[in-house]
């Protein structure tokens, strides 16, 4: 394990960045996600209009990996359709569980692909995955009007 591949600039930056870290007043969905064994906790808020994620933000606390993963996810899904966002969550999960490792296939994840190396740290996989699972849960019953 090489820490340079885990605690990269971009992950460190996202983990403390305040850009996406705030409540979302007009949110249409709000869901809590947590890793009870770690104490990671986020509240994910989404503003969905006509099957599209118009805005997204989060509050909460946790380890650098979970916070960076949440922030990167929000950057990525803003403006995407619910369907696209769920497909990205699917892809992220495939990456972190080592089912997909090909760089070109991971391109749609953009910056979030920086979390690929977490797949080598079994104890931290759940930190990276948590926000994406929360996204999936939040959009599961989303009526696709």
């Amino acid at each position, binding site marked *: 394990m090489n*820490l340079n591949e885990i605690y990269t600039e971009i992950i460190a930056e996202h983990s403390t960045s305040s850009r996406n870290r705030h409540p979302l007043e007009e949110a249409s969905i709000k869901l809590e996600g947590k890793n009870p*064994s770690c104490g990671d906790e986020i509240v994910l808020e989404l503003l969905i209009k006509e099957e599209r994620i118009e805005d997204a933000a989060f509050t909460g606390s946790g380890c650098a990996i979970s916070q960076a993963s949440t922030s990167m996810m929000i950057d990525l899904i803003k403006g995407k359709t619910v369907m696209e966002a769920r497909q990205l969550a699917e892809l992220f999960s495939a990456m972190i569980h080592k089912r997909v490792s090909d760089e070109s296939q991971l391109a749609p994840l953009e910056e979030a692909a920086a979390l690929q190396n977490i797949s080598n740290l079994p104890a931290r996989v759940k930190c990276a995955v948590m926000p994406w699972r929360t996204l999936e849960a939040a959009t599961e019953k989303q009526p696709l009007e």
Partner: protein
Amino acid sequence: MQRNYAEDFPILKNSTSNGKRLVYLDNAATTQKPASVINAIRDYYESSNANPHRGAYPLSERATELYEGARQRVADFLNAAGPDEILFTKGTTEALNFVASSFAMDIVNEGDEILISIAEHHSNLIPWQMVAKAKGASLKYLYTDAKGELTEEELDAKISPRTKIIAVAHVSNVLGIVNPIEKIVGRARQVGAAVVLDIAQSLPHMKVDLQALDVDFAAFSGHKLYAPMGIGVLYGKRQHLSKMRPMLYGGGMVEDVSQQEAVFLEAPYTFEGGTQNVEGAVGLHAAIDYLMGIGYDEIKGIEDELSLYVVEGLLNNPHVILYGNSHPHNRTGILSFNIEGVHPHDVSTILAADGVAIRSGHHCAHPLMRHLGVNATCRASLSFYNTKEDIDIFIESISKVRRWLRLESK
């Protein structure tokens, strides 16, 4: 010159962690095993393995002798009144659950109080929630002060004539604080409460004399005492054991069984239904022999010195927040801390890259975490096989954590 006990532990001599020498500082979670324990297990399976208590052939007689010999060794080690007060279990958790379900459920009534400390491990906490709920009793908490200690005032305020059971750890698995058991037992006797002592974290580091402490029950796990996994001990005073219901019904614990009725044996056999773990007992015996060959004075001497050295190193770092007492008086070598601005899980991942194994999380003590006002902590826990070099590597690694997270300029 002091002996380097790491030499006795194959995993410490041979293993690397991320290509680096293993610096194992998670001894409160589980300890490594000396070669003498590993060899005792192998020898058992290569020369004496049989189902004990049942066979009239030499192999089974030998297995029985080894098993009962281990029980006698544990009784002597803890200064129990006799081997019949020693029951083998699979660990502390099973032992404490059994006291809760087979002793407490019979003596606790509606309106009674069960008293535990806020620093208890979940294994000495959730079973009492269950008893309290089932019986309509109330579960009360002794709170620790800012240093992590239980004060006399707190004991006076919480121990009342309604207290039926006081269950506490001898040593906290998060703060390492040694609780004032003599005082607790003294007050318990005045109100007629039974005392259940969790010695999982004390026995590896200090002499425990159960008759001197005069507690009613005590429990520990072999795997935290340099012995194999899958074996533990429940000590119970004869007067209690003789009245308790069995733990598991099955072979080895009955005198006679008809289609509708069973007549049970006496303690300790009535509590050991099913084929017993002779390997575990043999390994535990070997571990106690190994420890007593070193002696508690030597163990405490080494661990206190290392403990001071760790504290010094940690406090030199302005970003470290240390929980509980900072001097080794009244504390074993368990150190809980946080690094400002960093989540404990990131700390342990970063330390792991340097070969250092520490624990981070809630340490199976959620209520204590809330009491301390934190989500989680980092915990380094020492053994006499650790060295100053281990600590140097640990402290050096700690100093790099905030830089990895870009919280400091390099």
